[in-house]
């Protein structure tokens, strides 16, 4: 009985995740040469994401009230609720990236940062992998996402250091550099939120809390 409903919940989250992934890809493509600067579609996707977020929230609340789930069913609903929230936040990060990408669209600035492409690919891959891990209850993949987060943090730090140097050297471009800083910070948040999804997946499958490195202490 509840199983059918949980499958529907999973379907809704998959739809939401695919929209968010599209938003991140379109927004990031805009700062690379050869892509269009038209970013209206990201905003249209955001409206849909907000609507689906509310639908998933209501659905989760109803499932708890009507079915009084226990054990893994309860964990599935609670984690879906949290992941739903993370996905909505991810869409917000994509919108932030879009705003800054719009400001520097067509400028050759991103070409000065070869790490940016790497950071973009890694963040998007983390988002994709974390949702695959959740949908397929793949704990090994989820743990890998958590490990990947460090690489994105390092790339972010490295880009930030370069930006500070460039800001001092060419203050006339400071506006562009600030937008780029905002983009990388948001990419770093995308990696963090993907890590949240992965940590919640581990809790869903194994019932273990791994966030804040709680399991290291035990």
């Amino acid at each position, binding site marked *: *009985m509840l199983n059918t409903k949980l499958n529907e919940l999973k379907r809704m989250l998959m739809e939401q995740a695919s929209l968010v992934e599209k938003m991140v890809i379109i927004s990031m493509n805009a700062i690379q040469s050869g892509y269009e600067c038209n970013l209206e579609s990201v905003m249209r996707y955001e409206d849909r994401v907000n609507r689906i977020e509310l639908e998933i929230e209501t659905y989760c609340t109803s499932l708890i009230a009507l*079915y009084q789930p226990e054990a893994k069913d309860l964990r599935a609903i609670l984690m879906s609720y949290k992941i739903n929230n993370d996905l909505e936040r991810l869409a917000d990060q994509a919108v932030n990236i879009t705003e800054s990408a719009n400001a520097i669209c067509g400028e050759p600035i991103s070409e000065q940062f070869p790490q940016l492409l790497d950071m973009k690919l890694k963040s998007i891959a983390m988002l994709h992998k974390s949702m695959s891990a959740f949908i397929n209850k793949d704990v090994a993949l989820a743990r890998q996402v958590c490990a990947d987060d460090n690489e994105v943090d390092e790339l972010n730090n490295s880009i930030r250091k370069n930006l500070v140097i460039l800001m001092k050297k060419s203050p006339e471009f400071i506006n562009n550099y600030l937008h780029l800083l905002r983009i990388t910070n948001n990419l770093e948040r995308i990696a963090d939120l993907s890590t949240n999804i992965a940590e919640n997946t581990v809790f869903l499958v194994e019932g273990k809390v791994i966030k804040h490195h709680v399991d290291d202490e035990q």
Partner: protein
Amino acid sequence: MVKAHICTNNLNLWFGDNHVLYDVSMCVFENRITAMIGPSGCGKSSLLRCFNRMNDLIPSARIQGSILLDEEDIYHPKARVTDIRTRVGMVFQKPNPFPKSIFNNVAFGLKIQGKHSKSEIMDRVEKSLKDAWLWDEVKDRLHSSAMSLSGGQQQRLCIARALANGPRVLLLDEPTSALDPQSTAKIEELCLDLKSKVSILIVTHNIAQAGRISDYTAFMYLGELVEFGESSQVFTVPKDSRTEDYLTGVFG
């Protein structure tokens, strides 16, 4: 669009001087499950029994208001009670098979109607037992006594007996309260399966059961219909504080 199937309009019921239902207006929708919940003595079963005129059997019962089944008043002086009970089947709390064979329990209603051929009765019995998910368990012993079945099987037999008459509405009065959890789960799943064929009104003391299987929920208190709405709404954000209190165990 959901269609109202059977509706009460300002229904009042008295047993002698005792006023037990106050201006109840609600509908059971077609091919949906409606659950009635509320504390003991709130009038759930009395209301349920109005839907197929079972209260007629109580001499002191008096009714005011109307109940429309497919827009026909079932309390109209010219309405035939047997016809109404054919269209509105009922299953009770305690399984109550007749002390007859499994076959004859299901065939009973059809036989007394006296308008069906033997082969037609055979077919209807088989179909009803299949619809009640009992056929595979009893097909080799249709002529054994119904009393030899387990409690859960007896209850599904009672459902098959009601289905044999081709009802449009099925009334279930706490159908699982005398059953073990496994038999209960089977009856619940059966209800979900049956709703494509009949509209179901179920009285239950088990709030979780109402949540699991019903599309609509009616909450009754002291003979009054306090709240009626989609179960997803009644169970998450009830409109009346009494419903909220009952669902959260403050009373009842």
